[in-house]
């Protein structure tokens, strides 16, 4: 049994435990928090989602919720599932682990998720649709069966959004070799708004173009101004930008209006986001995108962890990727991959560009439910 401490990387620990078939125990979950120690509602919600997708898993939580024991079951998945994600974290929090888990199911996964579609802490559904899914298609060599449909958008704090995710099954992953960054050839994006004037989307696009057009003329940002049933329960707006390179790599950045979720965080919110006019949000997203381009690598900072995980699950061949400076999330991912699968990456820094070549021999994790025909 592997032992961990704290609530960091909660989802990835459970996903890795499930895929590797190893039991885990997590202690001291927010033990230092005097007001609300233990698991939060979104973590409990994720555990319930995990129980929906697997057969025979055992979850034991102590009285205060500060310790958790998890014995994984068999991933089943299936069609027609649905899950209410609540409103304390966005749908992105739940989508991310599903993308990997769903590939190793017994049946095709088709699930409806309800909640907040875009917020300022998790990747939004547009990022998943325009960057994460193409990345999966590219690395797994899949053509169809991978789809994320946004039925309705929902902003924080009340949510009300709905997305449908469909995933194919794999027997095993293919080798991954992504070392060519290429040069940025075009920039696309989506500016969305819920329950506010449609003009807001154009103002965000103006803000982003003001920065990006100095470097590139080929910038086109789609606008999606929703109202009525397709716009959820709260007002909000934001923008997702994607830079596409000549080698087919996608780098993304996003920014959105930060609605306050509770009174206690209101004060710091006001300090942090003094200016939340649409132009500033567009400009900030553009700056974040340029920051990602400057850092380099075949994926942006937010996708480093996922790509490393796919490499580690891959076949017993050399899987190599080129990344920008590692994010804290990616560093913890690397440690988990060593603990769960015994996969150690060799990391080579290229000094002139500051990028990192990460190479590993995969653990060759196979889908046990799928018969070899």
């Amino acid at each position: 049994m592997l032992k961990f401490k704290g609530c960091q990387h909660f989802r990835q620990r459970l996903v890795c435990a499930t895929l590797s078939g190893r039991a885990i125990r997590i202690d001291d979950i927010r033990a230092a928090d005097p007001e609300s120690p233990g698991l939060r509602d979104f973590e409990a919600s994720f555990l319930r989602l995990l129980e929906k997708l697997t057969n025979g898993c055992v979850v034991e939580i102590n009285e205060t919720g500060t310790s958790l024991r998890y014995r994984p079951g068999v991933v089943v998945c299936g069609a027609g599932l649905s899950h209410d994600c609540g409103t304390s974290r966005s749908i992105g929090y739940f989508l991310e682990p599903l993308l990997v888990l769903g590939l190793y199911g017994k049946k095709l996964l088709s699930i409806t998720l309800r909640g907040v579609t875009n917020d300022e802490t998790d990747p939004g559904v547009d990022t998943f649709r325009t960057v994460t899914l193409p990345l999966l298609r590219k690395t797994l060599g899949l053509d169809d069966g991978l789809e994320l449909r946004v039925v309705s958008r929902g902003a924080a704090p009340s949510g009300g959004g709905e997305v449908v995710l469909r995933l194919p099954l794999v027997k095993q992953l293919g080798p991954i070799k992504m070392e060519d960054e290429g040069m940025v050839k075009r920039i696309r994006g989506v500016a969305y708004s819920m329950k506010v004037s449609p003009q807001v989307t154009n103002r965000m696009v103006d803000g982003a173009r003001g920065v990006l057009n100095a470097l590139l003329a080929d910038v086109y940002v789609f606008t999606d101004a929703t109202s009525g049933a397709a716009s959820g329960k709260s007002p909000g707006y934001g923008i997702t930008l994607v830079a596409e390179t000549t080698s087919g790599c996608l780098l993304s950045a996003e920014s959105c209006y930060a609605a306050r979720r509770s009174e206690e965080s209101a004060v710091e919110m006001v300090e942090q986001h003094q200016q939340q006019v649409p132009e500033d949000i567009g400009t900030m997203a553009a700056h974040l995108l340029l920051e990602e381009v400057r850092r380099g690598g075949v994926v942006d900072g937010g996708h480093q962890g996922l790509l490393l995980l796919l490499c580690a699950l891959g076949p017993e061949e050399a899987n190599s990727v080129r990344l920008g400076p590692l994010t804290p999330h990616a560093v913890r991912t690397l440690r988990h991959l060593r603990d769960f699968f015994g996969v150690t990456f060799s990391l080579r820094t290229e000094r002139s560009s500051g990028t990192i070549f990460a190479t590993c021999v995969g653990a060759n994790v196979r889908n046990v439910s799928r018969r070899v025909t």
Partner: protein
Amino acid sequence: DDDSEGMGAAARWKAGMAARTSAFFSERASDLAAFVYGKRAVADAAGDDDFEEAADGGARANDGKGLGDVDGDDDGGGGSEDTLDTCRVLARPEALTSWRGDAGAETLAALRNRFVTGDWAEGQRR
């Protein structure tokens, strides 16, 4: 032969400088591995308690302490073990100041060759 006299020793000392410097910087790769995986990768003789603890698969939190803990870098509230569970790179306000104003124009110019509108030969060199 000037080299055989006093200056010769200095020249010999200087001869290997470039090679030694590059050798020093090439060790940065193992620094990174040590930072990610703890001291195990490079600590050969000095097998201290920290290293033993890392080997049994538990108490992962001690890793990389000597090189600056990653967990201390990001803000998630609570202790370092309870950082916010998100893959998104949360931007700190000061991280983006280099893109604004006059400094921003310079940073943009430095990035020019990463775009197809820049110099392709420079861009391919990476």
